């Protein structure tokens, strides 16, 4: 495709999109991401089509994905000519016929089923979206197209400014200028660690060896994080555009998208996006006649959380065991097949088209000085609005959870939030004024990480939370280093005892001490972060732990607090690590 043909394609796509926004007949938007499908969206879609036939009403049915109102799924939006678009929640196959008949035939917009309308003023008893708690603090950049476009349509993407940034890079900017812009924007890695992407790109670009590779880390195996999945299911071309831009900036001929096998729909949509971009000539050789060529391979994982660690992902793609390795060399020097490799998270790369389109200045005007831009959060647990929300970095925890998250479910009271996923820490109620950005939650022993937050009410036992995280980390440890492999096992044994009413007060010190050792002597982020939830539990909820070990009582009433039936375990056995720690403590004490 020549630049002229590209501009013509873009013009036509935009023109067709206008007919979507100013429809002559009703448009029905059905959300079809994996969260919606789990709630029965496929059946809703069938019901809508058969109802339209039965009513003899002509309407356009559009598939979209992931507006973010996951708790309302199945979500259906309806836009009638002359009326604003209205979002409806809980539209199961049973509800859909009634809704369509009411609104399309009897002209009753059904405020009882509606969540909000896309209008400035309330529309016939339906609140405007912009005034809802869920929406009013959001700053939608990465999720801007989600819920609007059909994720399987490259034309929809192009009509909404898609691939404009890529064209701009290729036609108007040198690779060095692209790297410079990304550096200036200070886009920090959204995979958890917050490393500046521009610096990573620069070191790979200046590495001597060729070819260089770009890897999109879409493994996301963490138990309460689903933002990358939604970004891929809702707007796969956005990631793809960011990936090609990275390829151009770094001087790489090939990119890989490494997707966890738990994500079949994200995989399917990404593969389709790659095909479409190839057909259009935005991937392949000589893109837009500039001589730059780029190929993308989509690679499945096989279900090991640890393979999401950057160096492990590289082995995973190479068809080996996905285990982390010691650094240096860093991947930017010697990564995939020994070549300079950039590993970036899905959300990190999805930011790039926006950085190029709007400039680094615009990007740094969002968020905070240290953490510019927005962040997509996955919210789950005992809050009202379980789903996704995109806010500027620096938003307070209270705003995020109690405004965008809707606060606690009816009848439950806030206890704590586990921020940063399984390797993050608990944040209690009196610390909710903390801001969400890189490097702030650390002061309270937690972190933002990849933005997966789990909210707990008073019925949750904080010791159980620490036990759960430890169990996860023990199971997912690759076993390469002893402190991580044996340490997490031994801590898990302690927790088992404590939960079964056989803990001792000295367990508290023992947990703290072994945690410090595991953090200090583990090779990768899993081991280094595994004890973080334990330490944060001790820090903020020690009373609760003391109740377990001293009074043999679980205040939340969750832990069994009596020996497991049929358990052959002696009431108290000291693990090897504990013995070693005990001995060491004694030596230290007598010196």
């Amino acid at each position, binding site marked *: 495709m020549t630049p002229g043909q590209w501009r013509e394609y873009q013009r036509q796509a935009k023109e067709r999109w206008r007919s979507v926004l100013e429809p002559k007949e009703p448009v029905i938007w059905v959300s*079809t991401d*994996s*969260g919606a*499908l*789990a*709630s029965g969206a*496929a059946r809703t879609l069938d019901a809508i089509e058969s109802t339209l036939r039965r009513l003899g009403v002509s309407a356009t049915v559009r598939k979209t994905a992931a507006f973010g109102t*996951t*708790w309302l*799924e199945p979500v259906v939006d309806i836009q009638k000519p002359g009326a604003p678009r209205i979002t409806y929640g809980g539209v199961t196959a049973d509800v859909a016929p009634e809704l369509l008949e009411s609104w399309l035939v009897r002209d009753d917009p059904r405020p009882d089923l509606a969540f909000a309308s896309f209008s400035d003023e309330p529309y016939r008893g339906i609140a405007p979206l912009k005034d809802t708690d869920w929406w009013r603090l959001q700053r939608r950049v990465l999720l801007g197209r989600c819920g609007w476009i059909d994720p399987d349509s490259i034309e929809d993407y192009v009509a909404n400014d898609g691939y404009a940034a890529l064209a701009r890079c290729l036609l108007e900017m040198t690779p060095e200028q692209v790297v410079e812009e990304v550096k200036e924007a200070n886009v920090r890695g959204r995979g958890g660690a917050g490393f500046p992407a521009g610096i990573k790109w620069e070191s790979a670009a200046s590495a001597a060896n060729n070819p260089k590779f770009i890897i999109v880390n879409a493994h996301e*195996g*963490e*138990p*309460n*994080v*689903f933002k990358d*999945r*939604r970004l891929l299911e809702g707007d796969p071309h956005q990631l793809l555009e960011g990936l090609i831009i990275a390829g151009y900036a770094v001087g790489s001929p090939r990119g890989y998208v490494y997707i*966890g*096998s*738990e*994500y*079949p729909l994200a995989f399917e949509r990404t593969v389709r996006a790659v095909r479409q971009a190839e057909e259009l000539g935005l991937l392949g050789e000589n893109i837009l006649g500039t001589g730059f060529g780029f190929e993308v*391979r989509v*690679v*499945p*994982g*096989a*279900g*090991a*959380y640890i*393979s999401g660690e950057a160096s492990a992902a590289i082995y*995973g*793609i*190479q*068809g*080996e*065991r*996905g*285990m982390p390795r010691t650094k240096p060399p860093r991947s930017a020097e010697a990564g995939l097949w020994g070549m300079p490799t950039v590993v970036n998270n899905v959300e990190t790369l999805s930011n790039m088209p926006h950085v190029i389109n709007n400039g680094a200045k615009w990007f740094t005007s969002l968020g905070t000085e240290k953490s510019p831009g927005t962040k997509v959060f996955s919210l*789950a*647990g005992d809050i009202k609005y*379980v*789903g996704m929300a995109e806010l500027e970095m620096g938003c307070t925890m209270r705003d995020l959870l109690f405004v965008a998250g809707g606060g606690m479910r009816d009848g439950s009271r806030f206890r704590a939030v*586990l921020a940063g*996923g*399984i390797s993050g820490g608990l944040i209690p109620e009196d610390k909710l004024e903390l801001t969400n950005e890189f490097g702030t939650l650390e002061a309270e022993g937690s972190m933002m990480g990849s933005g*997966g937050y*789990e909210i*707990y009410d008073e019925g*949750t036992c904080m010791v*159980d*939370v620490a036990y*759960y995280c430890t169990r*996860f980390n023990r*199971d*997912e440890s690759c076993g390469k280093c002893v402190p991580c492999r044996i340490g997490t096992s031994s801590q898990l044994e302690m927790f088992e005892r404590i939960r079964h009413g056989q803990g001792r007060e000295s367990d508290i010190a023992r947990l703290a001490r072994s945690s410090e050792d595991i953090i200090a002597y583990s090779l990768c982020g899993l081991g280094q972060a595994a004890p973080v939830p334990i330490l944060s539990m001790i820090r903020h909820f020690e009373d609760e732990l003391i109740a377990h070990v001293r009074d043999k009582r679980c205040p939340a009433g969750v832990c069994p607090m009596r020996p497991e039936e049929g358990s052959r375990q002696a009431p108290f056995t000291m693990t090897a690590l504990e013995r070693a720690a005990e001995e060491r403590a004694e030596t230290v004490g007598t010196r």
Partner: protein
Amino acid sequence: MSLTDTWTGSEADAARVSAVLDGFEGADPMESLVPALHRIQEHYRYVPEGAARIISDRWHIPMTDIFAVVTFYSDFRTEPAGRNMLWVCEGAACYFMGGPELGRAAREHLEIGYGETTPDGEWTLKRADFCFGACHLAPLVELNHEIHGPLTEDELRSLVDNPPQHQEGSEG
């Protein structure tokens, strides 16, 4: 479901595995290993040793390297899975909202542990520590690639007693 076959090591089996490998013609064998193992497992519900041997011969990958991969990743099995695959979600939302109780009910009802298959080869039960991305339906299970939630223990038992017949071409 007649989509899967039992591995017998017959010529037909060998031909089938070879056909899978033909699909990766021209691609890097190491990059193709995990995708090929997925395909083979989809068909036989595990990775038969004989199939691994064919890969090893054709792509010159030592058996030990293939075995290392098969045993490392939790997706791959060295024994056939049951005809019904039941995952109980114990991701961070489901765990605290009743996942472990569902898990206990499933283990008692099927009389097997997590990771095991019933002797009649009908059911395999697994615990998911990852998240199905459907936390709004917690606690949930995934049965043959379809999410069911939120579930009570009774609902789970009746789901197991009357598993929905999978329809061709249905999504989800």
